[in-house]
């Protein structure tokens, strides 16, 4: 465990600890003090934003509900972004098909519920392995050959794949919106704000999966291998790590995260073939915000974006909530292009 204390992969690649992508996979690249300070700044800004919203709206209940809804939605955004950021951190692939893969998983959940009458959450047992396999197949079949190729190649492949998947779904399932209902759904009041059971489960699921992913990366042999490959592929290969396999497995795990997010979100949304687009942009913003490749940063970034989205509707009635999201996105890009929790490259 001695290597995990100081950033893990540092021992594998002592020459370039500053720029090490492996460090980006971990939550604390700058040491706990700096991280806490930054979290404090973000938290402080959030409190100010909420206070201003309170002044604007004049109703404590409305703002409180917005905060609760925003955080619940944010957990889901974080979960979707986690897979994306993992793939980016290790493989350096900007995966535009992530949203379409999410939509595939939702249709798997819908199909299984429809066909067998299983509880929607039990479809995790089908959707997550299925997405894992699809992810592995996509990487082996389409992306593993593009290792040294230009960024545009990967972009075109993932974008093309997303168009193909979406239209495939359209052809197979039709455009009619589908509904996955949660049996025994309940709701309760949290100091006056309504919390629906499905949204709470999705939020808790996001935290749980985030924790599992974090544990996998930091505490397992396989996680060490992933970090080693992310840090220095050649070096990892020299010490006997099968880099190609690690790449494929990482892509598969990232895609499986989308599968889990899809099942948890399915009862909360209307399932349509183009649904991925709705989440894709938000997920990319979250990834950049959290620091690209930073799994824990993705979760925090997700919570932040969920909050911003809801508060925007209070600040600017009649505007798209995406407007506020992009304002925050641009500010972060200007002030900290490496993301809130990323390290300068």
């Amino acid at each position: 465990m001695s290597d995990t204390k100081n950033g893990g992969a540092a021992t594998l690649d002592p020459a370039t600890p500053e720029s090490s992508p492996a460090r980006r996979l971990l939550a604390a690249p700058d040491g706990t003090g700096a991280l806490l300070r930054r979290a404090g700044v973000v938290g402080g800004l959030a409190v100010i934003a909420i206070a201003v919203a309170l002044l604007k709206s004049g109703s404590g209940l409305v703002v409180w509900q917005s905060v609760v809804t925003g955080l619940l939605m944010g957990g889901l955004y974080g979960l979707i972004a986690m897979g994306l950021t993992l793939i980016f951190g290790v493989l350096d692939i900007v995966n535009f098909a992530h949203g379409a893969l999410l939509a595939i998983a939702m249709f798997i959940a819908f199909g299984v519920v429809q066909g067998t009458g299983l509880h929607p959450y039990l479809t995790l047992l089908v959707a997550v392995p299925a997405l894992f396999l699809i992810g592995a197949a996509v990487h082996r079949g389409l992306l593993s050959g593009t290792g040294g190729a230009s960024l545009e190649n990967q972009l075109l492949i993932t974008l093309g794949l997303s168009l193909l998947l979406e239209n495939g779904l359209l052809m197979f399932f039709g455009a009619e919106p589908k509904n996955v209902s949660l049996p025994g759904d309940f709701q309760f009041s949290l100091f006056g704000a309504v919390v629906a059971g499905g949204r709470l489960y999705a939020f808790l699921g996001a935290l749980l999966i985030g924790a599992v992913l974090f544990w996998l990366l930091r505490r397992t042999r396989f996680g060490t291998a992933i970090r080693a490959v992310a840090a220095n592929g050649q070096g990892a290969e020299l010490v006997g790590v099968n880099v190609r396999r690690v790449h494929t497995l990482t892509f598969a795990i990232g895609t499986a995260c989308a599968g889990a997010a899809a099942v948890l979100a399915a009862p909360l949304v209307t399932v349509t073939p183009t649904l991925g687009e709705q989440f894709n942009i938000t997920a990319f913003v979250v990834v950049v915000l959290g620091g690209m490749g930073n799994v824990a940063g993705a979760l925090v970034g997700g919570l932040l974006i969920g909050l911003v989205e809801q508060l925007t509707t209070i600040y600017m009635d009649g505007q798209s909530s995406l407007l506020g999201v992009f304002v925050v996105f641009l500010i972060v890009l200007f002030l900290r292009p490496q993301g809130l929790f990323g390290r300068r490259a």
Partner: protein
Amino acid sequence: MSARKLVAGLGACAVLLAAAGCGGSAPSGAAGAAGGRDTGPVKIGALHPVSGGLAVDGQQMRRGARMAVEAINAAGGIKALGGRKVELVTGDTQGKAEVGQSEAQRLISEGAVGIVGTYQSAVSTNVAVVTERNEVPFVMDVTASDEIFAHGYDYSFRVQPGSEVISAAAAKYLKAVSEEAGEPVKQVAFLHEQSDFGSGAAEAFAAAAGDLGIKVDPVISYDAATVSDLTAQITQVKASGADVLAIAGYYRDGLLAAKAINAVKPGLNAVWGVSNGAFDQPKFVADTGALGERYFSTNYHFDAQDPQTRELRAEYQRRYGAPMRTGAVLAYDAVQTIAAGVERAGSTDPLEVRDGIAGAEVEPLTVGSGPISFAPNGDNENALPVLMQVQDGKVVQVYPEDKAEAEPNYSVTWRS
């Protein structure tokens, strides 16, 4: 490796998507406009979004138009032209304005004497420009926006009641129904999607309600494309103390609103759809179950009382295995209108067909206060919005009285 890479990627993505959206060929000019009009069948163009996100409705409407053509031919074709048959030529807008425009041009070059369509206001706006330039009549089946009819176009007609007419009727019906129930409406909260459709409906409703002495506050908007939770908005409605919530939006967000209302349980007497794309759909009833019960909806509608409409819908159900939506019945009406114009003109010359349509009186299968007959601006002056309600898992017409299948039930499930 930096954010720059990702931003560059997003830019490339946007360019690619824009390029992908530019499909569809555009035969230029109207050189062949009159080609084939004088011989063979009389061609009527149908332009709908049969692929893409709105394909379900687009398919419905194309089928409705086709059934109208079949009915005309079965009844002996165009009698004024010695029984010449009618043929439907079709185009797919893919839900995109520029594709709709080029497809309209193509249908006109193929010799269409008139065009029906298009389901979306934005697409109709562009198609109206093409038909005006080519001097070919354009009879809109579904197009809510009133703006097209402010341009003084000579070739644009519309069968459905416009946005303003529906919103004004919604306010009027609300006042009448709430008073009859002994709980006259005092304050309406209006929730709408933020594009022209929703904000136009909200403005028109607020104006009409104001004239009737009804307070409209707050007016809350959301982005239909990205919204995935309306709980905070419904909480705002609850905090405002409004006794009625009016909603103008599409299907997906209508469903979200119903879920949020069920969660927050605001102190309302009624949920009131205005041109709402969800609350009068059988699918909404199936998807929401008990949640959607007693929701009202003011909108255009097929005439549930008319035996001919019933027969048509039964035939549609038999043939396609799905209930026939109002959009399809409106497409049926629109084709009938063009055929009536040709019949009156006794010619396929577009100018004479245009005059024929302008003076035609066609019995609609959708609800109207009389035959389809056009005001000078091209709007159907007898189009009548109807009030519907979800009752016992079915959408029924409840107001005005002569179109009603059942009594309105002015209450909500979570308060009784």
